[in-house]
Structure formats: structure tokens, C-alpha cells
């Protein structure tokens, strides 16, 4: 036992020195990627808008009788108001927050599931891998909107953001699992894994402490992609009437409520939430792109 612990310490020291250098390089490369840095700033501003904004802005997202209905954007209501008498700036803050909540939970949840699943499949290979991969094929074949929509419909009260987050996470991890498995398949033959094994590390220990940390670059990139994916799926499902339901709110619901008002006097109801979705997905994609370039120098040349 003590033997293992000692080797662990040695190893982690070795790893950490290596890592520090690597992460430094990653940061430096990332900050050279101008679009990614700008995106990062915008994304942080959106996060502040959603989570801090409500404390600073005088209106919340609820209906107030003193708010006029369908007021165009003005100083009092920068994003206008809707029919029921809701300040749209307040509503946007809440909707953005709920959509980001979904996105973050999905990103973390699906990444954890996907990374473990992929690592286990890649590590054990053989029949474990075969069974796990067949199940992955099944998940791949099932139409995503159908299965998530059916599950959201099965919830017997109104669908809240956390319902949606769990559903999307449970069905959204497959691409990560594939990517991590591919990485693990090549990693598991490397010397440091051999070393960890010969030092008596358990399988679980090797997977969690050695394999997954070394696939971090794949994982971090896919986390960012998952955020964009979650935002888009969540809003699409809401639009189709299979997602989040009022009294909860989301960006997709706001667009759905705006209906066909893109070219009439209530245009702001349609464009503002739409632009917010695009901003989130766009900045996240750029950040992901920057991270990929930064972490995998080989790919810089052939940036995808």
C-alpha cells in the first residue's frame, strides 16, 4: 500500500511539472487567438448579464401591472415590454440564466458521463468495449429530438430547466465518449500507464487519475462544444413545444412567444433573444476553436 502511495506521489510530481509547462503554453497560444479572446470577453459579459444583472436592474422577469404592454424599447425598458406587461430586459436576464444553467449542467454532466464511458471502453477493450460501443451505436441511431422530446413530454408537471438539463445530458454524451475512447486507446499503451499498472494501481485509479487527465485537451474542447450544442438543442426543443415550459422560461420560449413578429412593431421581441442565442453559441464556438488550436499544436496548421 505504502509502495503505491509513494509511486503516486512521484508520478504526480512528474506529471505536475510537465503539466505546468503545458498549460502555460496553452494559455499563451490561446491568448494569441484574437477571435477567441474577444469571444471570451463577450461570453463573460453575457454570464455577468445573466447572473449579476438581475441584482442591478430594477425589473424582474415577472408580470407587473404598472408595466405597459407592448412598449417599444426606451430608457425605462431598454428591450421593450411584452403583451402581459413584462420588462423584456429582466425577462432576458432570467431566460439567459436558465438557458446557461441548462448549458453548463449539460456540458459538465455529459462530459463526465462521456469521459468515463469512453475511458472504460478504451481501457478494457475486448467484450466490455464491444458491448459499450454497441450501446453507443444504439444511442447514435435514435433520433435525438424524438427521444429527448418524448422524455420531456413524459414529465407530468411543467418542464423546468433542470429537467431539460438532465435529459439533454443523458442523451448528449455520445460524441465525447467516442473522442475520449479513441484517445485512451492510444494512451493505454504508453509507458506511464504501464508504470502505474506495475506499481499496483487499480483499474479505477488508472482511469480516473491517469487516463482521463491526459485526455483533458479533448475533453475541454468538447465541453465548449457541448455548451453550444445544449443551448441550440434546448431552444429548439422549447420552440417545438417539447422543452422547458412556463412558468419557467428560456431563450427558445421567448422566441416562440414572439411568433411572427420579425417585421412588425414588436420586432424586438423576436430579434433580441435570437441574437442572444447566436452570441452565446458563436462565442463558445470561437473559444472552443481557440482552445483546440492552443492545446493541439498539430492542428493549428489545418484549423478546422
Amino acid at each position, binding site marked *: 500500500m505504502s509502495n503505491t502511495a509513494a509511486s503516486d506521489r512521484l508520478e504526480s510530481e512528474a506529471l505536475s511539472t510537465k503539466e505546468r509547462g503545458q498549460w502555460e503554453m496553452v494559455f499563451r497560444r490561446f491568448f494569441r487567438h484574437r477571435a477567441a479572446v474577444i469571444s471570451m470577453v463577450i461570453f463573460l459579459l453575457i454570464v455577468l448579464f445573466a447572473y449579476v444583472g438581475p441584482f442591478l436592474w430594477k425589473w424582474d422577469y415577472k408580470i407587473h401591472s404598472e408595466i405597459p404592454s407592448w412598449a417599444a424599447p426606451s430608457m425605462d425598458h431598454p428591450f421593450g415590454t411584452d403583451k402581459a406587461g413584462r420588462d423584456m430586459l429582466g425577462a432576458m436576464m432570467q431566460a439567459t440564466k436558465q438557458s446557461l444553467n441548462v448549458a453548463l449542467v449539460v456540458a459538465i454532466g455529459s462530459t463526465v458521463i462521456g469521459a468515463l464511458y469512453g475511458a472504460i471502453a478504451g481501457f478494457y477493450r475486448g467484450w466490455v468495449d464491444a458491448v459499450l460501443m454497441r450501446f453507443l451505436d444504439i444511442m447514435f441511431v435514435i433520433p435525438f*429530438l*424524438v427521444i429527448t422530446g418524448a422524455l420531456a413530454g413524459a414529465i407530468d408537471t411543467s418542464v423546468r430547466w433542470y429537467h431539460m438539463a438532465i435529459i439533454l445530458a443523458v442523451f448528449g454524451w455520445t460524441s465525447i465518449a467516442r473522442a475520449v475512447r479513441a484517445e485512451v486507446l492510444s494512451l493505454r499503451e504508453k509507458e506511464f500507464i504501464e508504470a502505474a499498472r506495475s506499481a499496483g494501481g487499480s483499474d479505477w485509479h488508472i482511469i480516473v487519475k491517469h487516463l482521463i487527465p491526459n485526455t483533458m485537451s479533448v475533453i475541454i474542447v468538447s465541453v465548449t462544444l457541448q455548451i453550444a450544442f445544449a443551448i441550440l438543442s434546448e431552444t429548439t426543443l422549447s420552440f417545438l413545444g417539447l422543452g422547458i415550459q412556463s412558468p419557467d422560461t428560456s431563450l427558445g420560449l421567448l422566441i416562440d412567444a414572439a411568433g411572427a413578429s420579425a417585421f412588425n412593431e414588436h420586432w424586438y421581441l423576436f430579434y433580441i433573444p435570437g441574437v442572444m442565442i*447566436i452570441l452565446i453559441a458563436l462565442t463558445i464556438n470561437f473559444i472552443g476553436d481557440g482552445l483546440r488550436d492552443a492545446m493541439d499544436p498539430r492542428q493549428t496548421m489545418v484549423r478546422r
Partner: protein
Amino acid sequence: MMIPVLLGATILCFVLVDIPNDPVQDRVFEIEQSTGEPVPQSTIDALEATWYYDRSIPERYWIWLTGVGDTNDDIGLIQGEWGPSIEGTAMPIGDEVSDRFWITLRLVLFATIASIGIAILAGVVSAVKQYSRVDYTLTFLGFLFLAMPIFWLGQLFKEGAVQLNKILGSTVFQTYGSGTTGFQGNGWAVFVDSLPYLIVPTLVLMLGGYAAISRYQRASMLEVMNSDYVRLARAKGVRNGTVMRRHALRTALIPVATFAPLSLSAAMGGAMVTERIFGWRGLGVYSLDAINAGDTFAVMAYVLISGIVVLIGVLISDILYGVLDPRIRFE
């Protein structure tokens, strides 16, 4: 290999769609609401028997798959029967999905072909003019459309088409349906008839789908352009245009060719939204309605068809990869 995967997918879907729904009870309530009078028990029993809701879920799945047992001869996949739809007997699932399959296919094919064309063009230009203003603009546009929810784009274009019609003073673009109601004629006439209906939704689906492929194309083009054999050709003094056409582009198309069949299945997902907005009576909308109504057998039909389409896409992609990969061809 395909069959166990499809079986697994259908079992999973069957359970998830079937458990929370009770269409018999919902139907009975609807009748009571509309007639204002109670529904006789014999009718309720008859409904249960017609839709096979008089058995348990495993039994229902088994009978859906095999049709073995006490049936009305309208169920059993391996016997070519899709099972009863709760929509009613005038809309048998088999007829519906086969009609709708072509409607969806028309939308998806046009959109996919158009998006691949644009993607290749954009990708090549981007790669050739790497790091130029053109490249940045195209890359940004690609990212932009990648970030755009397709339903938002669809709403925008639909309403834009209405406004354009207003300016033009005639209904050039139709907003709903895939062709004139009840139109009959030969293939060409049907196509011409469908144009006013086809343009806007295809545009939407195309813009939603091209960005991913275009980035792919750019990357592979750059890889080829930096490869040794292209450099060699250049060094030999072959003209730039010829190098691009003869060597670079041809090789760089391979990844896109293998990627395209997969994007067909992505377009099927996008078609769900587009069909909903533009009122196309395609498979996507059928599945959405079936989910909402708890019409399990209809959902199963969609799962099966889209599953087969996806698997065929994977298969074609694998075959293309084998056929096109130069390391296999030139060895």
C-alpha cells in the same frame, strides 16, 4: 450488425414513449368533450383492442415486432405491418411514412446538395486565400450560421418571404405546404409547382447545414496544399491553377465525400424544425405529432426509418472512404 442496433434502439424508444402515455383515456375524454355525452364501455374496450392497449408493454412490443399472437392482422413488423395509428384507420402508418418519406427526402436532398456545393466553394476559397480578408469573412459567416438556431432562421425567412411578397405585390413565395393542394401531374410539373414552396425552406436548411462541411473542406484543402506531392508539383513548375484542380482539390474532396452521407442524417433532424415551420407534411412533423399524441407505433416507424437512413449513411460513408482513399487506390 445493423439489426441488433436497430432492435436495441426500438426497444429503448418503445419503452420511453409508451410508458407515460395513455391514448385510450385521452381519446375517450376528447369524445366526451365534443359529444357532451358519456362514452359506452363497449366502445372503450373496442378502442383498447384496436390499439392493442389491452396488453402489457412487453407484449405490445413483441406483437409490434412479430405480429405473432392474437392480432387484427394490422401489426407485426416482420410481416410488413406497422401497427395501428391512433390517428385513425384512414391514416395507416405504412402509407403515411412512405408518402412522407419522399417529401422529407426532397427537402433534405436539395438542401444537402446545395449546402455541400456551397461548402466546397467556400472551403476552397477560404483555403486558397488563407488568412486573407475573404478567408476571415467566410470563416466568420460559417461560425455565424453554425451558431444560428435553425428555427429562428426559419421564422425570419418565412416572415421575410411574406414581406417580399407584399413588396412584389404577388404571392411569389408560399409559406405553408410543399406544393399546391391536390396538385397532380407528371414529375416535371410537380417540381415546377413545388418551386414557390421549396425555395425558402431549402435555403434555411442549407444555411443551417453548410457551415460544418465548409470548415471540414477548408481544413482538408489546407492539409493537401501543404502536403509533399503538391509542393513537388509546384516545384516542377506546374501552373498554380492546374495544381489546385488536378491534385489538391481532388484529394481534398475525399473527407467531404465521406462526411456528406453523415450530414444527411443531421439534415433529417433539421428537417423536423423546417417542416414544422413551413407546414411540410414530412416525416419529421409526423414524428413530432406522434410524440405529442403518444402514438407509440407511429413513433416507432419514424425511429426505424431514420435509424435505417443513418446506418445507410454510415455504410455509404465507409464505402466511399474505402473507394476514395488514395492510399488504397494508388497502392
